[in-house]
């Protein structure tokens, strides 16, 4: 009896798996039949666990459909090895163009070079690749340094004349975040320059992983190490929200102001509720749309801006209260 049951379970799982496989396949087939007159765009996202990249993927898919392309979205899960494999798979299946959020700006080099050799154009979005000898057809991203400056301004505004100790929740692996923190440090440095009182001191950079859980853990440790903290700059919204949770648990949420980055929905809601002071907001939807338009321009032989940086804007509680996207 037990054996029969086991056989039945195994059979069910296999059938379910095959069904899922087949279902997805026909789904892709329908998509191709309906619109993909001009080919497929392969997109390897940094991590689809972060809504930011999901928005890029979704807007890319919608915009591409309008132009007669379909998009295959894959998740690199912050692993450059996985991302390289996805590039190779795109090349094997003959895509018209590849879009990457490079997980590692240098180590992605060999994979991009293989795409170059195969004659498939590579576009980057959000993050840039800086490996030697690679050809990137176009880049659309945020002006992260400018965003970092705005984050610094927001922090200065949030702390007021008192100043105080500030912690940075970093994600150093991503060059965009390095630029953000550079901008932030520059703004704080300018503020401190001719000031002896009310200075803002950046006491540490902790690795927040750009994720909610890692940000939470890093912040929980940060609270122990630096009991006098007055502010936190988190390089994106997930880690800012993780930091908020840690501060609430420690009963310190009222004393420590948070500046985030991104302006994703959960982040905007937190700004409305006063949980995050402000965000320099990015426009992943514009990134997705512009990237696809660049691909179309490329394939149509038209000229386009090869490196397109979208400036951020500060988003505070007053903006959130008037934001129709939040109800």
């Amino acid at each position, binding site marked *: 009896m037990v054996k029969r049951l086991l056989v039945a379970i195994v059979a069910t*799982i296999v059938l379910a798996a095959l069904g899922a496989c087949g279902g997805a396949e026909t789904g892709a087939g329908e998509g191709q039949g309906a619109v993909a007159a001009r080919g497929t765009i392969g997109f390897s996202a940094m991590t689809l666990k972060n809504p930011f990249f999901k928005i890029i993927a979704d807007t890319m898919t919608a915009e591409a459909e309008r132009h007669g392309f379909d998009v295959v979205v*894959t998740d690199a899960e912050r692993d*450059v090895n996985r991302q390289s494999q996805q590039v190779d798979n795109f090349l094997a299946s003959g895509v018209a163009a590849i879009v990457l959020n490079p997980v590692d700006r*240098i180590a992605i080099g*060999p994979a991009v070079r293989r795409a170059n050799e195969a004659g498939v154009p590579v576009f980057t979005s959000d993050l840039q690749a800086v490996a030697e000898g690679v050809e990137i*057809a176009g880049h659309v991203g945020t002006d992260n340094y400018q965003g970092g400056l705005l984050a610094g301004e927001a922090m200065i505004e949030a702390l007021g004349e008192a100043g105080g100790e500030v912690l940075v929740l970093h994600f150093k692996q991503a060059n965009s975040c390095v630029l953000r923190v550079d901008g932030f440090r520059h703004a704080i440095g300018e503020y401190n320059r001719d000031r002896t009182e009310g200075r803002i001191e950046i006491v540490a950079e902790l690795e927040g992983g750009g994720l909610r859980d890692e940000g939470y853990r890093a912040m929980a440790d940060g609270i122990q190490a630096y009991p006098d903290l007055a502010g936190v700059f988190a390089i994106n919204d997930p880690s800012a929200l993780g930091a908020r949770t840690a501060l609430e648990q420690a009963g310190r949420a009222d004393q420590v102001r948070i500046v985030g980055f991104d302006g994703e929905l959960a982040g905007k809601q937190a700004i409305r509720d006063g949980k995050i002071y402000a965000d320099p907001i990015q426009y992943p939807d514009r990134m997705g749309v512009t990237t696809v338009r660049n691909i179309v321009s490329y394939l149509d032989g038209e000229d386009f801006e090869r490196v397109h940086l979208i400036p951020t804007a500060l988003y505070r509680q007053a903006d959130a209260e008037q934001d129709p996207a939040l109800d």
Partner: protein
Amino acid sequence: MPEGVSESTAGRWRRRLLDLLGRNLSVVVLVLLCLISSAATWREQNPITSRSGAAVARQVLVACQAPCSVLVVARDTEADRVFVQAIEEGLDAAGARIAGRVFGQPRDVRLELERIAGTGGSFDAIATHRIASEWGPVRTAGKPVFAPGSYYWPTFLTARNLLNVVNQNADIAIIALGMTLVILTAGIDLSVGSLLALAGVIAAVTAQEWFGGAAASPAGLLAAMLLGVAAAALGGLLSGTMVTAFRVPPFVATLGLMMLARGLALILAVGHQRRLVGGGAEGTPEAVRVDAAVFAWLGNGAVLGVPNPILLMLVLFVAAHLLMTRTMFGRYVYAVGGNVEAARLSGVPVTAVLLAVYCLCGAFAGLAGIVDASRFEGGRPNAGELYELQVIAAVVVGGASLAGGRGRIAGTLIGAMIIAVIQNGLNIAGVASYEQKVVFGALILAAVLLDRLQPKIASRRARMTRASTSTPVQ
């Protein structure tokens, strides 16, 4: 049920088939998966070869009256050049004129069209391949476009993709060989992913700082690589010592080493980056770049069209297979895994065997780390995260028992390939990444469950056989 000669023959055949299936279940699963992947990737293929080039030339000549003037459009790749050469040879032989030639991007086609129009020239047709025939300037040029016909074939079953599948998972397979030894002794090694990263970072940092960076000689690079492997083997020896001398459960000992090695890899990489920028600012945990071009040969080079990681994997596979089937050491490993006490009593040097097994597992992880570093032209401190789970899955899917004593090297290779094919098939079939995780997990469970049923099916068959010989029919 009537007894008869034909009945018993059918029964025998059925039994033989079941036997065969039972013994090679993982092979059957692998073949099935390949078939499914092929079916799911049945796609239009657009050949860019010298044969398809010649075919395009013939098409043009049939449709276009002589003297015919042709614009040839292709991308700037090796395959495209071969393709264009065949077109031009075909056209030349028939006396057609080449009005222009584009090797490049859609933009270059536009510029060439503008140039031709600017000089008052004209042409009658465009010869190109399917990909470039979709380019805007080609479509809107207002001339007939000729491209080779396409055919249908599973993308999965193309040489490029099959080499991809194996190449991408060569590192997993290499580590899985070492892991098989550990699992055969009823142990487990969670540190392999971290040891991989540590070996890669050590090789990269020493290549850059000790052996001359961009000017490093091949011997220096080899030394750097060996240092990386040695460090990983040393790590394995450490967990082996914990397991044998201090009776620490392998799970815990290697869990500790996993964190320790990852931390060391990060510290070394960040330290190197800091020295690069001249101290002061803290470094970033990016890949430690190796400037010497030869370093990339192991990971990105190929011999006779077969990527080097695959060749390394095959060599190590044969070595491990021989080690486990032809040597005393191999028999010792099985003995220790089957029953430690019995092995000890019958004179097997249990401690030495366990030390060697963990050391080898570390060394295999180190080798995979060298392959990884070479592949990415630098040591990545974040490399190999969660590899331990993929590797253990490969070994278990390959039929090894986590209880020790049962499992084969060949099974492990097949297990690694099963996982590779699942991943690749799902990717190429365009299954979204969230769904992939579900399918992947379900297929692993299914494969392992099927494998676990094997002994039960076998014993049931044996009982049924016995039953049918002793009593007539139910």
